[in-house]
């Protein structure tokens, strides 16, 4: 299992680097903007806190794309270069292969989310000696549910398709599709939009988890690598 984890980490390493670089750029732009706006003085603690919250929020929304990337890349990447054929003839079971892929993606996403949580909800209140932005946790939970959606849909598409481009695209478009579907359902059933919006988190998580389970089931049932 350790070797599978190592292999999946190496497969996902370019994505991890891309995501770290993107997040780093967001924070770097935030730092640069703060310094430039306060020049020639240094930014105050509350300026830093504001910068961390705004950069962290941008990074939080970026995790939607990251989870789509990880989900869509997970299985199809090995079909793309045909190395799935090699792996299929080795002893690991499909469940072990999936568990390793999921672990690596989950650890990567958890790391990004830890960073986001620290910069949005933990560090800024400490800097300005204020209570945490509890109210913004609602935004966070909404983003998490969309992350579950993009990851699950990407994972399922990746289990079915042979190249990573389409699964990633499908994953990134899935929140739009779910939103459109909710709006349509609301207008057909004459349900107020505010009420429909309340369902979006639940629908996103349910769709994401269902897609993840369906993709895993399909991968385990499929005989061809």
């Amino acid at each position, binding site marked *: 299992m*350790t*070797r599978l984890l*190592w*292999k999946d980490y*190496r497969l996902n390493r370019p994505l991890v680097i891309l995501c770290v670089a993107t997040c780093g750029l967001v924070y770097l732009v935030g730092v640069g903007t703060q310094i430039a706006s306060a020049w020639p003085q240094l930014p105050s603690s509350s300026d830093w806190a504001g910068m961390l919250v705004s950069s962290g929020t941008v990074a939080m929304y970026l995790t939607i794309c990251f989870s789509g990337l990880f989900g869509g890349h997970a299985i199809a990447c090995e079909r793309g*270069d*045909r*190395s*799935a*054929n*090699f792996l*299929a*003839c*080795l*002893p*690991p*079971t499909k469940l072990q292969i999936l568990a390793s892929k999921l672990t690596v993606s989950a650890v990567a996403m958890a790391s990004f989310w830890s960073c986001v949580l620290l910069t949005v909800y933990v560090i800024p209140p400490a800097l300005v000696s204020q209570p945490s932005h509890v109210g913004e946790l609602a935004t966070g939970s909404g983003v998490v549910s969309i992350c579950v959606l993009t990851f699950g849909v990407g994972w399922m598409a990746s289990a079915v398709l042979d190249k990573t481009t389409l699964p990633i695209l499908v994953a990134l478009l899935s929140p739009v599709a779910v939103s459109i579907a909710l709006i349509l359902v609301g207008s057909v059933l004459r349900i107020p939009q505010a009420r429909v919006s309340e369902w979006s988190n639940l629908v996103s998580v349910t769709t994401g988890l269902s897609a993840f389970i369906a993709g895993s089931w399909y991968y385990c049932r499929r*005989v*061809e*690598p």
Partner: protein
Amino acid sequence: MIPVVAESPAVELLGVTKKFRGGLAVDNLNLTVPRGSTLGLIGPNGAGKSTTIRMLMGTLAPSLGQVRVFGLNVANHAARIRPRVGYVPERHDVYPWMTVSEVIAFTSAFYPHWDVGFCRELMDLFALDGRKAVKHLSKGMLVKLSLLLAVSHHPELLILDEPTSGLDPIVHDDFLEAVLRSVCGRGTTVLHSSHNLEDIRRLADSVCILRAGRILVHGGVDQLLASVKRIRAVLIDGHLPRWVPDGTVSQKIQRREWLLTVDRFDKSLADRIRRENPVESVDVFDLSLGEVFKDYVLGGAEP
């Protein structure tokens, strides 16, 4: 519950059929490979050799029938079978971004009986550089790496799917030497699919000729060469053959020369050809495995 089948053959194909959209790739194949034997699987392109091997490896499901390895159904017990099997495919899909050492470390982790010493010996024999990335290996080196990965855990069944096609003679000889070294005295069952009939002649105890997904002939190599003969008869001018023996694999008439390849040959057959046909002379020739193969495949004999 996993059935423990101690005395079962290494490989059993029971009425195996594989249909693709383009048609039948394998048609009701029944084949048994006893443990410790070496079977040469030969046939023209599209005969169904690679499809059969993919079904044996559990990476392709048969449309009908059952594929069993060591008595276990591949469809249900692939994970139990794979640690006991070494496989050198026709196309080597090893992770291109790994180095040779990384591939070896990665693969060895899944085999409890990985022989580090033997692996090192093969690396030296093949002059494989552990630091080189797989994507930078030549075709010959990739084949050698693939063989090293397949045999370093001393598999009970070694499956070779046209591994030496397109190799230069030196790499080819290195490859065969390593195969012989790895299977010698270990009771390894070998299933070797190849277009190189010299390799089959050198390695195999028995041979199976496939055409259009069906077995044309299956038997011991020596037994086959002893029983399949070519008969050249010179016909009397203006006459055609009257009696064609049963077991004729192929026949051709050019002017007065009548060439027949027959299975189950014995001396009385030549005498009967003389008696029953308007011939001036009858000569009998031995055939090479290549000639037997060509006559079976081109002769149009029904399986």
